[in-house]
């Protein structure tokens, strides 16, 4: 444990070099990342879920490898090994990612510190927004600031927590990277896609900032990424919550630099105007949630049923004339008693089709099998002994005659 702590200290010594060396690279890389994430729209919704899921699995493997790399890097090899590693990593993508990791780690550590201090989820949302990340980023990771952060961190946190946080810090990048890589696969086109892009960009920032603990638990279970859909759903929900308090992304973007601010604020505007209609349909905020969740039509007795919706029962409430078409076809729905649960002929249970089947104006219900069997025979209704055929014929003749609506 003590060793780990000293490793952390090493990291703090090690890290201040990084912004100096990679100052331009960092600043330029971050906006480019964000820009990429904001400007490149994702695929049309979650249509290719399967493909995305597979991609996510592959990425998870990659993530794990890189996390191990990162942990190995941190654990004692120090600066030399890191530089070695950076030279060792051939692709530019790797370099960018490392910077991202480095950028994220102090921020995440800070977040986690506050989480561990205060414990509540709200505190996890807010402190990073108002204090550390924005400040840190605003001052472009000045040595002192950065050192302060980690210094206070290492003082505050118990030894036992350190390793865990490293873990978290490493893996907290996963969602961001996932989304970035996903987006880079995807092709830009219609406005609708822009929609989803807006949602995703908002959810990404919020996810990497606030859901670190959630991700840490998921990273412990490697198969968690299999459940990518639920994660995506959670992101959507998060996005709608973000929509309510969009200050965080703004802060985040303001702190970076001018161009980024322009880009992201415009995209946030897009977020706002795009998320609003979405929040209408996934209404965590408005009262129609239950109805949308239930996924059913309005019922006449729904309390929150809009007045503008037509009252069908009212439309059909004109006087029913015995033997008329309306009495036969529509009276069955509104006027007749509820159907029996079993066919009175064969005593088998009536399914929904049978229950809605009223072959005779007398309202006698029976299952389709029995009806068919009767039609083979004398074809008379068991309830009233009238012939089904004449009934149908009279129906037809009445259907042809135009009846004015009362």
């Amino acid at each position, binding site marked *: 444990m003590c060793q780990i702590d000293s490793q952390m200290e090493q990291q703090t010594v090690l890290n201040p070099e990084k912004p100096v060396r990679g100052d331009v690279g960092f600043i330029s890389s971050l906006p480019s990342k964000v820009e990429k994430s904001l400007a490149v729209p994702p695929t049309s919704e979650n249509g290719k879920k399967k493909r995305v899921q597979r991609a996510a699995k592959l990425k998870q493997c990659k993530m794990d490898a890189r996390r191990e790399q990162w942990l190995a890097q941190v654990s004692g090899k120090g600066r030399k090994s890191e530089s070695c590693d950076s030279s060792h990593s051939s692709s530019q993508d790797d370099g960018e990612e490392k910077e991202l990791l480095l950028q994220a780690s102090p921020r995440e550590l800070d977040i986690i510190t506050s989480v561990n201090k205060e414990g509540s989820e709200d505190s996890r949302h807010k402190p990073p927004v108002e204090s550390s990340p924005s400040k840190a980023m605003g001052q472009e990771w000045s040595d002192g600031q950065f050192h302060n952060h980690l210094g206070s961190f290492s003082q505050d946190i118990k030894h036992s927590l350190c390793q865990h946080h490293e873990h978290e810090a490493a893996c907290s990048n996963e969602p961001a990277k996932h989304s970035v890589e996903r987006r880079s696969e995807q092709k830009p086109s219609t406005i609708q896609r822009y929609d989803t892009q807006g949602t995703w960009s908002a959810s990404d920032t919020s996810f990497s900032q606030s859901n670190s603990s959630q991700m840490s638990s998921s990273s412990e279970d490697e198969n968690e990424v299999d459940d990518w859909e639920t994660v995506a759903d959670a992101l959507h929900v998060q996005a709608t919550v973000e929509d309510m308090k969009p200050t965080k992304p703004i802060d985040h973007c303001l702190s970076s630099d001018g161009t980024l601010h322009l880009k992201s604020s415009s995209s946030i505007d897009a977020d706002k105007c795009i998320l609003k209609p979405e929040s209408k349909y996934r209404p965590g905020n408005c009262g129609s949630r239950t109805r949308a969740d239930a996924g059913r039509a309005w019922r006449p007795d729904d309390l929150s049923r809009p007045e503008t919706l037509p009252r069908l029962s009212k439309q059909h409430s004109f006087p029913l004339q015995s033997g008329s078409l309306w009495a036969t076809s529509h009276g069955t729905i509104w006027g007749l008693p509820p159907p029996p649960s079993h066919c009175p*002929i*064969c005593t088998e249970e009536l399914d929904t089709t049978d229950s809605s089947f009223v072959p005779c104006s007398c309202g006698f219900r029976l299952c389709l099998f029995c009806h068919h*069997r009767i039609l083979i*025979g004398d074809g008379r209704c*068991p*309830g009233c*002994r009238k012939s089904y055929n004449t009934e149908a014929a009279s129906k037809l003749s009445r259907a042809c005659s135009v009846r004015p609506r009362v």
Partner: protein
Amino acid sequence: MLDVSRVQKELVEVAGDKVSGVSIQLLGNSLSHLQGTIDGPSGTPYEGGVFTIDIQLPSSYPFEPPKMRFITKVWHPNISSQNGAICLDILKDQWSPALTLKTALLSLQALLSTPEPKDPQDAVVAEQYLKHNNTFIATARYWTEAFAKRSSIGLHEKIQKIVEMGFSEEAARAALQSSGGDENAALEKLCVG
């Protein structure tokens, strides 16, 4: 193929009803041959009688009517006094699959209450009903007493046995009545007496 589930449910339904005066018994293992009983409706010459009805269910039941026939001898315009055949529309062309054995038996009860002499099964009885109604009522009551009383179920056969032994029918009937339907006790009484 007979709709076994429906017949079984009908039997359960009838067995659960103790007040309407109808019952159905199984005859052997087959559901296609049953035996029903109805109580003679009160206020009629058939009051106090228990009438047994033979029920044959066709394989197409309930789309075809059950075949019913009175086993107990009945004096009724619409029931054959010879073979117990019933003239009732719902057991013929007015049958409906919505009807059940129970409703059919109840219809027979109703038929006992309200004979239909204009559409007779037994022309002799119908004529008597129309022309000599009092005689009809007396005869019907006698037949009920003779053949349909619960105590006299099988009385006819017992009387026949005693008569075959050489006693008169009236003496045999009186002896059986005094001995409460016990054939041996009646014989003893006749032998002693």
